């Protein structure tokens, strides 16, 4: 199974390309000491997201907590480091070293989280599982990934329904006392767990009913073709790695 005609950018690239893109971006964020390179990495992520059809609005909305936390990191670093040229020294002391350290930490955090979010947004888990299986990972583990993803929205929905059911009956479990905690567990997690177990039984019947596990190996989906999108993405991260190497050689910060 491959990407679809309507997919573009990283969405149509192979899962291995996407894994490489993620690995390089995270590697650059962790290994490169250069602030400029991390800023370029962030720009590359935003560019790749736009190229892949991930709208800037939804991308930023999904990252809003990450952005807030990045700002907190920046401020905390800027206020806590007192060495360097002093820029402000009234109620608080802000130095150039503090600002640079704050920016470096915030950018590192942003690049790692944004690249991970981009990966999740553009990679079809079915295709990723297929790729993992082709790489030799036992198919049972490959399907664990897919099933886990099937269960995430399920549990979210079940939790909402159970909370609404509690509200309907005037139940407001409190966790301020051991008794309240016990009650909250019973009133919330037991119904969700029951739903989960029922779902697990249905999925198990469905998989067994279609011969899952009958043989040690199963037919793997066709290998995916290398496309122009793969070449584009690899060129992009190749350039980024090149800059990072040059920056490291020249000692840029």
């Amino acid at each position, binding site marked *: 199974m491959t990407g679809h005609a309507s997919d573009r950018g990283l969405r149509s690239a192979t899962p291995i390309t996407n894994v490489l893109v993620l690995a390089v971006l995270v590697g650059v964020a962790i290994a490169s000491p250069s602030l400029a390179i991390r800023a370029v990495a962030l720009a590359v992520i935003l560019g790749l997201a736009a190229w892949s059809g991930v709208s800037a609005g939804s991308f930023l909305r999904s990252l809003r907590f990450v952005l807030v936390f990045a700002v907190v990191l920046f401020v905390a670093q800027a206020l806590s480091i007192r060495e360097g040229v002093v820029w402000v020294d009234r109620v608080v002391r802000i130095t150039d070293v503090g600002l640079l350290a704050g920016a470096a930490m915030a950018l590192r955090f942003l690049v790692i989280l944004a690249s991970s979010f981009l990966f999740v947004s553009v990679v079809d888990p079915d295709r990723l599982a297929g790729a993992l299986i082709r790489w030799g990972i036992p198919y049972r583990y490959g399907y664990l990934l*897919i099933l886990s993803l099937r269960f995430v929205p399920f549990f979210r929905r079940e939790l909402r329904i159970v909370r609404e059911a509690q509200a309907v009956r005037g139940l407001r479990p409190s966790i301020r006392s051991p008794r309240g905690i016990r009650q909250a567990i019973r009133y919330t997690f037991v119904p969700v767990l029951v739903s989960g177990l029922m779902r697990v039984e249905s999925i198990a019947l469905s998989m067994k009913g279609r011969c899952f596990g009958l043989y040690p190996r199963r037919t793997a989906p066709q290998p995916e073709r290398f496309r122009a999108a793969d070449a584009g993405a690899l060129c992009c991260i190749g350039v980024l790695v090149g800059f990072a190497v040059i920056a490291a050689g020249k000692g840029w910060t």
Partner: protein
Amino acid sequence: MSSSSGAVVAKDLRIRYPDRDRPAIDGLSEVIAEGETVVITGPSGCGKSTLCRAVGGFIPELIPATVEGDIHIDDDSVWETDSARIAQRVGYVQQDPDAQICTLRVEREVAFGPENLRLSADEIRTRVDDGLRAVGIEHLRHRETTDLSGGEKQRLAIASILAMQPGILLLDEPTANLDPEGARSLFGLLRRLREDRGMTLVIVEHRVQPLLEMEPRLLVLDRGRLVERHARDHIMPRDVGDGPAPGAAATPGAAVVTVDRISYGYEARLFHDLSFDLRRGEILGVIGPNGGGKTTLLRLIAGMAKPDAGSIDRSAALGFVFQHPHHQIFERTVGKEIAIDAAERGPGEIERWLAEGRLSGLVGVPPLSLSLGEQRRLTLLTALRRRPDVLLLDEPFIGQDRRNVAWIVSRIRAHCARGGAVLLVSHDIPLLSVLADRLLFIDREPVLGTPNEVCEGLRAAGREAFHPAAWEDAR
């Protein structure tokens, strides 16, 4: 074409689950011939699903139980054959289509079984195309499974089973979660499968009437025993039961809920400028296609979500019974569950309520161990214990046998007779057409009126499945 034939022979079958006193199947013997269509019905907990799961080879390999007797598929004993190998002859479609989807794309879901059989890529492609074509969802092949409607998911579940090319198709209440149009369309699909592929069809259903057009043989189970057999030429209307008699004409009182020009839904707009009121003593039935917003409407009225525009005025206490009883069951015993909802918690009071729900003697029993019918009665009782003015009921009849349906109907009518109002969401058009005072059809163009006005209007608009005649004239 199916790759295997399809004869089932059950001989003195007994199945007992580890935590149950009485057997789920008790001495059942039956022969289902190749190419036959058999409908299995009976009250809740009578063993219908257990029988399907046993024929599918899931008991006791996947579901622990003590088994006696034998089941043969063609010449092979189910007990002595790996369930995965049985799966190549018997396809099992469960009640909830969403719960049996294992992958994230339609095409991948249909390919899942053939891939497990280690078939060649070309053969898998052929089977995927064939399966999707057979159920009429070729156009959905690249869609994500989470984006499908209930009816589309049910078709996908059947397509993914057809790709295994079984000779026998077991369907466990396949229309339980489908709207009337989806259910009719499914029956048409099953007819085609039988005619084109000669498949053996075993269908578990509470509502037998719509299936009579397929001229099935009818088996009635009760307490795990086969109590009635009807040849396909001898099924009489009395064998499948009648709906409730029409109630006395309601005299509506003051409005207790007023919905004024509400709009809701961001990506897909569910309602736009929807207005109606619910009056004391009235039963307002809500019908419409899957995904049309019926449950959302109940949530809006209950205050669990807010409309994007318009307002809902509710000057009344609300009781809400959800579609799945286990979502509303919190306590460790039936008695404690009943005690949650009212100040009067004496043993006599609780016993009186339990007796009203035909749950006497179950005060110390864990509620989640009750049958689906008992759980449904318990959740309706707990809602009524709060003495609500308005009762919101979301698909209360799904999976319920005739006796339970009759009990639920009696409670609804009693509630209205005391001046309460009921908003009732259901796909059971024949039942609603006699039970409800008015019907609200929710779709792009909502329709509100008496059951006759709404159903006739829908029929005139080409939506015959929402007319009771489409279900009653099946024969």
